[in-house]
């Protein structure tokens, strides 16, 4: 390589012997004729007068032009290309978002959202000299399942690297096609409907089990262990179990409101269960001691406190996490817990304040329902790990492709040779 100029066929430079041989031959042929002269005294005086100190034995212009032309032909045969300096490339990570981001990669493992972020960082480490950008994840609008709905909360956004929570809170990405170009890296959290043609694809491994893997409007993507299929018309549903979630119960009415807001159904005892799995099981304790006084507690949250009766069974199913914004006042134990697909509460009854339900109560319980419902349930025991697949990274196009110069050099050689023809 010579200052940005590379030669694809460098062996052709051996042919440079041809123009060199021509130059030597021409020099020998066109050696100045020797003329015998009587006396050179006056000639020396003439040269001194002109100040000519060096012998002028230069080759004529035509010979030099032919030499240069032959050299250009050899250079053209060597396949010259002008290789511009590689500019820093910019990769764009396109992260999958939506409910599937909340799914666990493995039992008890990190979420898919966290996994794709880790995969993006690992990808970035392979190209330390390049730059990386994040495709916008999109805003998440949380609706208040209350009469005071209207307040909009934005979670996440276009700037910076999103968090797993942002990925799971955001709507499912439907603009993959817009990012199908060289330099983009797709990191989906759910199976894709189309394969990228120009972008790179990185799929993290996740535990695949038959069941709903994504929700799309009224349809649901259902993986049956062999293939993913869309189940149209399968409206997502909530399964309300327990007296606390009865239709006339306060929590039941909150659940109905949340479902109505999101287009879900609430299925209760006595109703036929729809196909597929519920988005979330709203589980409540049934029964408990008959000592109503002993079961009376207070639930509190940010700016609210209500009286509630608990079942007293304690704990709930394994793997529950505390619900943010709802706590049991002055009593140990977990009164409300959740995990993806399950919202459990030991509450059997909530007393509606005479002054009306505080907005905070509505917000806390609706958020808890929606959080539990973002991750479709994976109830089956049989699991099969999806094989992680990483497509060939298609690097962003260089600012300027290597430009062949052979034709230009050959044309210049022809022009020079034509210039040496005698008129």
């Amino acid at each position, binding site marked *: 390589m010579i200052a940005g100029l590379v030669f694809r066929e460098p062996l052709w430079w051996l042919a440079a012997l041809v123009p060199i041989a021509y130059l030597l031959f021409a020099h020998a042929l066109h*050696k*100045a*004729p*020797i*003329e*015998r*002269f*009587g*006396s*050179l*005294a*006056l*000639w*020396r*005086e*003439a*040269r001194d*007068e*002109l100040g*000519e100190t060096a*012998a*002028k*034995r*230069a080759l*004529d212009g035509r010979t030099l032009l032919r030499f240069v032309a032959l050299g250009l032909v050899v250079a053209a045969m060597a396949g010259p290309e002008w290789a511009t300096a590689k500019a820093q490339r910019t990769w764009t990570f396109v992260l999958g978002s939506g409910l599937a981001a909340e799914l666990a990669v493995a039992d008890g493992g990190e979420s898919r959202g966290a996994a794709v972020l880790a995969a993006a960082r690992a990808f970035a480490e392979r190209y330390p000299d390049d730059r990386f950008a994040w495709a916008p994840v999109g805003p998440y609008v949380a609706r208040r399942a209350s009469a005071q709905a209207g307040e909009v909360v934005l979670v996440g956004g276009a700037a910076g690297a999103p968090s797993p929570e942002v990925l799971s809170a955001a709507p499912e990405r439907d603009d993959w096609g817009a990012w199908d170009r060289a330099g983009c890296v797709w990191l989906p959290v759910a199976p894709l409907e189309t394969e990228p043609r120009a972008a790179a694809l990185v799929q993290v491994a996740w535990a695949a089990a038959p069941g709903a893997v994504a929700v799309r409007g009224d349809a649901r993507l259902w993986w049956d262990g062999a293939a993913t299929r869309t189940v149209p018309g399968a409206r997502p549903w909530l399964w309300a179990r327990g007296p606390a979630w009865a239709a006339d119960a306060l929590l039941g009415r909150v659940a109905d409101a949340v479902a109505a807001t999101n287009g879900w159904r609430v299925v209760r005892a006595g109703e036929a269960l729809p196909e597929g799995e519920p988005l979330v099981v709203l589980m409540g304790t049934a029964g408990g001691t008959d000592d109503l006084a002993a079961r009376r507690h207070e639930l509190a949250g940010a700016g609210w406190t209500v009286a509630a009766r608990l079942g007293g069974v304690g704990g709930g199913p394994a793997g529950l996490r505390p619900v943010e914004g709802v706590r049991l006042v002055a009593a140990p134990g977990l009164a409300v817990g959740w995990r993806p697909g399950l919202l459990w509460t030991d509450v059997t009854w909530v007393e509606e304040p005479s002054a009306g339900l505080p907005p905070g109560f509505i917000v806390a319980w609706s958020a808890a329902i929606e959080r539990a419902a973002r991750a479709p349930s994976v109830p089956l025991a049989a699991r099969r790990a999806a094989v992680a697949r990483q497509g060939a990274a298609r690097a962003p196009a260089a600012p300027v492709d290597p430009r062949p110069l052979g034709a230009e050099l050959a044309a210049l050689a022809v022009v020079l040779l034509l210039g040496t023809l005698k008129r």
Partner: protein
Amino acid sequence: MAVRVRFDARMMGRLGRLIGRLRALRSRREGRGITRWGGAGDAFAGHRPWQPGEDARHLDWNMLARHDQPFVRVFEREAAERWAVLLDVSDSMDMASDERSKLQLAAETVLGIAALAVEARATLVLVASDGRQIEVARTADQAELMHFLARTEACDVGLDGALGALLASASVRERPGRVFIIGDLDELHTDEVCALAAPGRDLVVLRFLARAELVPTEVFFAGGARVVELEDLESGAQLPATLATARAYERLLGHDLDVWRRVCTRHKLHFGLVEVGSDTTFEDVIDGLVGGGRA
């Protein structure tokens, strides 16, 4: 490197014709009282009838008074007059023009001068490079001229024949009445030649130059050559020359020739430039010397 001259079989014939022409010219001129090759110091040779149209100042008035017929006096040089020819036979004289070297034409000119000497009743001595002298008696006949020709041809003229050295030769010290200096004069200075001038002595300087020496721009560069490698015939040294150099050389040569002409004119020397070429014959040179055309 010794150079040689060659005289072909026609040379004697040409010399004979030249002698005849010179003789006729001399008769015409003597009849008219013109004796260019006579001049001061000539001996009285006799009378001839005056021809109408001749200058009346040349009439012998005594004869007119005595015989009542116009006659003119005729003179000739002293019988003991000697002519010396100093011939430059250095290697530079080997330079040719149209395949004819300067030395060849110079040697032929020497033969012509020998014929002129015979007609002028003078003894001619050719001083060669090695100091040997080839003499032609004033009464030489054709056989003697042929002998002179052969000796000139066989003379080992070589690279030691510098004119400067010849100027101090004994033949010159003997004070010949007429001295011919023949060569390209490349190593001769005007002062050296002027030093030979003396009262009663005619000095004739003939500079022989090849056409390439006179107009190298036309000979070497007319074909578009950019550089010419010149080789000195005497030293073998080489010198590249361009068209610009050739133009400068011609300018310097012209100045040099002007100097020779001015100096010779000032010292009453005869200077002649002879361009050696196929068109130049020794008869032309002799005609130029005698100042007249061919008969």
